[in-house]
């Protein structure tokens, strides 16, 4: 039984095609472009505060002088934006929306209008956040972790409006992603192509689904916590006020109970994109598909039991710290295993080092650094010293940058042909790649050492700390800042490549990478309705280089 899409001739206006579309691919683009614009804002904030660190007190070009309050607002919103308005919308909402119907072989999500609503709420959340920078008192400046009482009382934060708008924006973003999750889960569960059994689902789709589940299960308590924070800020309740029967540590638990699973929420889709690319570009079946799944489940479950490693010295019962050290060191096991399996996939491959593959491999090499440096922090004893230092910062940039930047580029370079019907330019891609990776390491490796030297976080000017104002340390800060400038400059080839290729790139055809998964059966770019005839599935997604076959790939929808 074959299904045909309803390719009826609708009149599409600009508004109906681009603004009010319910097509999952258009919604994906909306999320992706919004995420990219927010990335520019978040990157700009990093530029400003790093310039302040390199040249304290001097005028920063394209900003002005950076006061202490402004510095705090910049670092707060840099972190907030990168996690909630860049990593999540691009990795989950954009990739999820674009890929799920295409890769499971159907024509759209099961609830297209809820899908559209989720983007609209997301867009409003972004606008609310940006508005917070322009209100009186300025944007929220209490760190992305927003610990009360600083965040709950204006007399401490000095940003009454900014604080409230910030938490409102975050809460709206949470609602948008809960709504988005409805589509992701139900569509993958129910709307798979005939013949696509559970273990025939591509890993990236599994990852997005599991990430959505993790998000949903962990964000609830923080939504409750955010409502409580909002009430403390606006109505004068005392949920977090210790002088009136509340507890500031309650917020920390609610925040980190979400905050830790959240890092896996963003990690999983990035790993998914990397897995797809590594299989395709090494022409190899994924090594132990089921182990990848099981380690993902294990990581997901364990992620709910590690949260207080962010709070070792926060005033929790010291005995609790031991429990969380054990669970935190344990969680490194399934993740390490996942990494080993992905690397094992390379063995015996026939590797082509095209730009998507370069980024996928860089993800593995860099994320490994992030992973192992986490061990120093998960061990309670060493965390006593390393907490709140640049060591922490370097650790999480070695996980987040691979996730939010390298993983995203892996996906964009790989799926660009399907999105826009053209190939991106390889030379510009490789230029972008090397410029990004080398400068990235030049920024953050030195920061590990600054952390070891005792440099603590969120300080606008280290001249106030004699032990940290030595020439050697300051030279390191200048070096890292210069590397950031180089990193930002090397994004220009990407932007040029991205937009020019839409018009001038080589026409891609349906399956330029000779991959197996169903999205490559549709035209490039995929039309409304995706497939002329809905595909049926006969095998798993990674049957590459099957012995006895001439072709080194075997698309899922090819019979026999």
């Amino acid at each position, binding site marked *: 039984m074959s299904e045909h899409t309803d390719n009826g001739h609708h009149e599409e206006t600009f508004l109906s095609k681009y603004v009010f579309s319910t097509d999952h691919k258009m919604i994906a683009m909306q999320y992706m472009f919004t995420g990219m614009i927010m990335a520019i804002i978040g990157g700009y904030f990093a530029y400003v505060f790093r310039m302040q660190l390199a040249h304290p007190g001097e005028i920063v070009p394209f900003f002005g002088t950076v006061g202490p309050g402004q510095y705090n607002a910049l670092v707060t919103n840099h972190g907030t934006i990168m996690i909630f308005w860049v990593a999540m919308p691009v990795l989950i909402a954009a990739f999820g929306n674009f890929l799920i119907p295409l890769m499971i072989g159907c024509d759209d999500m099961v609830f297209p209008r809820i899908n559209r609503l989720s983007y609209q709420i997301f867009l409003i959340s972004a606008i609310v956040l940006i508005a917070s920078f322009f209100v009186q008192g300025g944007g929220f400046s209490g760190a992305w972790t927003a610990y009360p009482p600083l965040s709950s009382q204006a007399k401490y934060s000095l940003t009454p409006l900014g604080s409230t708008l910030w938490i409102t924006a975050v809460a709206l973003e949470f609602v948008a992603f*809960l709504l988005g*999750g409805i589509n992701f889960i139900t569509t993958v569960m*129910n709307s*798979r192509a005939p013949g696509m059994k559970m273990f025939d689902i591509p890993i990236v789709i599994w990852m997005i689904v599991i990430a959505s589940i993790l998000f949903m*299960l962990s964000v609830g308590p923080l939504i409750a916590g955010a409502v409580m924070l909002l009430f403390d800020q606006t109505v004068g309740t005392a949920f977090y006020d210790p002088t009136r029967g509340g507890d500031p540590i309650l917020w920390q638990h609610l925040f980190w109970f979400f905050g830790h699973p959240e890092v896996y929420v963003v990690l999983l889709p990035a790993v998914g994109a990397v897995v797809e690319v590594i299989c395709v570009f090494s022409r190899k079946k994924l090594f132990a598909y089921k182990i990848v799944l099981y380690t993902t489940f294990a990581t997901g479950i364990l992620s709910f039991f590690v949260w207080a490693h962010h709070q070792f010295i926060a005033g929790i019962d010291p005995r609790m710290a031991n429990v969380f050290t054990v669970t935190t060191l344990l969680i490194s096991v399934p993740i390490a295993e996942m990494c080993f399996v992905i690397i094992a996939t390379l063995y015996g491959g026939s590797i082509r080092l095209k730009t998507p593959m370069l980024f996928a491999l860089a993800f593995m090499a860099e994320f490994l650094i992030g992973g192992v440096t986490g061990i120093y922090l998960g061990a309670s004893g060493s965390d006593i010293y390393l907490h709140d230092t640049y060591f922490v910062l370097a650790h999480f940039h070695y996980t987040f940058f691979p996730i939010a930047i390298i993983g995203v580029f892996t996906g964009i370079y790989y799926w660009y042909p399907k999105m826009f019907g053209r190939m991106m330019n390889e030379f510009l891609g490789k230029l972008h790649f090397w410029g990004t990776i080398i400068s990235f390491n030049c920024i953050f490796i030195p920061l590990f050492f600054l952390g070891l030297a005792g440099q603590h976080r969120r300080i606008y000017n280290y001249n106030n700390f004699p032990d940290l104002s030595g020439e050697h340390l300051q030279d390191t800060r200048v070096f890292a800042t210069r590397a950031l400038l180089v990193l930002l400059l090397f994004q220009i080839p990407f932007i040029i490549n991205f937009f020019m290729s839409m018009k001038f790139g080589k026409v891609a055809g349906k399956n330029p990478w000779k991959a197996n998964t169903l999205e490559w059966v549709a035209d490039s770019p995929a039309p409304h309705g995706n497939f002329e005839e809905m595909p049926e599935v006969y095998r798993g997604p990674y049957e590459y280089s099957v012995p006895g076959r001439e072709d080194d790939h075997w698309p899922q929808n090819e019979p026999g």
Partner: protein
Amino acid sequence: MAHGKPIATTRSATGIPTGKLAVWWVIASEIVIFGGLLVSYLLLRVRYWDEWGEAAAHTNVWCGLINTIVLLTSSLFIVLAHHAAEHNDTKKAFRYIWYTIAGGAIFLCVKGWEWNNEISHGYTITANTFWSFYYVACGLHGLHVIGGMVIMGIISFQARAGKELHRVELIGIYWHFVDVVWIFLFPLMYLANQ
């Protein structure tokens, strides 16, 4: 924009109707939200047992009891509505949905009277952290009651026209959840005051 429904909506690889999966997803996320709120409440409640016990003594157990019965009854009506919808008795389904909505309305009226009474006696949201939780938790629940009523109203008209009858069951599941939340709130906020 007259598109037909996507083919995706016609499939069911798990055998469970897609709408039902979606409702359970919504309920799961709501459970975690209310769960987080209630666990936070419990942790602080235990810590400040005496003080909060004193505050909680001023909640109106009779109102709470009436509202519990009202909600349970309204849940019965939505079950009957679903039953009617299954047998294509659209007029009956419509009526029973509105009895459910009426139950919600009574619930809100009782709550309104109750809160007005409490506030006029000085038990405001900032009086004490117990009262903060009371108003936030019951208020959040109340918002879900209102939301449920609105959706039920919309579905009632669709059902009467013979359309989307499966949605009667779905909103019923949601309404039962709203009920269950109240079943937790009632003892925690009203009864545990010894």
